[in-house]
């Protein structure tokens, strides 16, 4: 990290950059952790009209600062919500097309935006059994995705051990051919860059670098070849206002340690 006045943590940078990726008026299906926090941050800043959905069955809540829920299934998620529905119903909103953006964290991602949160090593004899998909598989199968995660070589791998949540699968038309005819990976927000995907090949591409990050640094922290345009732009650093709002929401650094 080389941003000059590094008066924030990597998690805080992730949160702020992710929040910026949301537009006002969108319906956003947010996972627990950074996504929940970033979507709430967006609501307090440039996108007050963002409607948040949580997989526990919450539609349009206002999360209370300092009372971040440990999962998206507790009553803290429902504070001042517009509506509560069953888990199945809230996921069906994705399938029916009411959602603009799915917003998740990730443990491991590959060049086609496939996410793994199930197994490190082979599924038959894993070195680590991870907690699994949760809503991730459904969200990434059914809507346009934004993923927030730290950019590290061990997390950005050529090919994930296990496709828990599908991106562009094996690239090209393979996602569509599998039966997933809508949605797909849109952005991966990391502590180094904003990443997107090539329309034809489905391979990961740098959309913008964070201030002070070089193309080489982005590549070094990635386990496969990134598409980087020589004219790639730079993001604006987190503002004092953004950081203050974020710290007001998560004073105990539950998600931004």
């Amino acid at each position, binding site marked *: 990290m080389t941003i000059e006045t590094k008066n924030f943590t990597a998690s805080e940078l992730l949160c702020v950059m992710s929040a910026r990726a949301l537009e006002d008026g969108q319906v956003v299906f947010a996972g627990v952790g950074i996504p929940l926090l970033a979507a709430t941050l967006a609501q307090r800043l440039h996108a007050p009209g963002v409607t948040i959905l949580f997989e526990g069955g919450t539609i349009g809540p206002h999360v209370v600062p300092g009372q971040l829920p440990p999962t998206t299934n507790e009553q803290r998620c429902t504070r001042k919500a517009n509506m509560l529905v069953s*888990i199945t119903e809230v996921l069906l909103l994705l399938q029916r097309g009411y959602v603009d953006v799915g917003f998740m964290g990730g443990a491991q991602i590959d060049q086609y935006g496939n996410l793994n949160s199930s197994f490190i090593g082979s599924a038959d004899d894993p070195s680590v059994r991870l907690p699994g998909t949760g809503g991730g*598989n459904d969200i990434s199968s059914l809507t346009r995705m934004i993923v927030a995660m730290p950019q590290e070589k061990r997390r950005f791998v050529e090919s994930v051990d296990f496709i828990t949540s599908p991106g562009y699968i094996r690239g090209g038309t393979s996602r569509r051919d599998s*039966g997933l005819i809508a949605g797909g990976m849109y952005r991966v927000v990391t502590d180094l860059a904003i990443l997107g995907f090539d329309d034809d090949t489905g391979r990961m591409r740098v959309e913008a670098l964070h201030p002070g990050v070089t193309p080489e640094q982005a590549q070094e922290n990635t386990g496969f070849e990134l598409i980087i345009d020589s004219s790639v732009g730079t993001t604006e650093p987190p503002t004092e206002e953004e950081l203050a709002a974020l710290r007001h929401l998560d004073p105990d650094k539950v998600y931004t340690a």
Partner: protein
Amino acid sequence: MTQDYLSLREQTQSRDRSLRDKVMTLEEACDFVADGEHVSLGGSTASRTPFAMIWALIRARKKNLFFSRSIVSTEGDLIFASGVGNHILTSWFSQGIVWGVSRVMRHFTENRLARFEEWSHMSIGLRYRAGAMGVPFMPMRSMMGSDVAGQLDNLKEMTCPFTGEKILLVPALNPDVALIHVQRCDPYGNAQLDGLTFMDIDMAMAANRVIITTERIISNDQIRRRPDQTRIPFFTVDAVVEAPYGCAPHECFGVYEPLFSHMDYYAELTRKEPMEGVKTYLDEYFYAPKNWTEYLELIGLEKLLDAARRGRSIYDD
């Protein structure tokens, strides 16, 4: 695994579906669960977990149960470690994101001592829903192309005869017994739920037996005053057990939030020596207390009151 229609109907028809008093103790309700059966759990993660009934089944030394739930938290560790169950179907299994990956889950799954069968979250909901509707499958559009689907052998892809689109069919899930904790229920089993309902309604309709634990039992007259607030009908229910703080250390919407410090304690206990930790926990909190009230006393009144204060605060605004 998919129960054929005539046997499902026969089982349902043979149940006593009349309006009758079903109030009993946790211990008595254990008789509705036989070793090896499929038990589905209401709630999700640390919310409305039917902890009192799981606690009772573990104490009753039930064995080899197959559990299903939308998302599994600490109860999954305790199910595997106690031996009450050796197979859990869910979409996510760990204590909760803030506590890291469960070492107990890892121990059992990585050593193949027990099975964690992973399905997409929505597919589990739709499987209960198919079971609730009396059809053998539900169509859906996710999971295709992923390795989650690749690991499962009871999925079918089809071409939609109306649109030509590729569709995934997931088979109905009709649990032998569903365990569901609610805020209020009458003696006949008419249950009212506040807040998030998770997959509980479909699960209750799908199951071949239902055990309701409830924060309090209310009169049938109360139910009949606002029948549009009833979420589970009496004729699906076989047992009604009053269990105050029946989800502790998890949450019951509007009544108490999770007992976070107790959950921190459990996480700490199982962090370094997961198997020793969980066994110590089981001995201390599951096998030692004489009854549910003693279990709550061990957790501590101060923690309960604090959780209750936070729980009721949802109605403060």
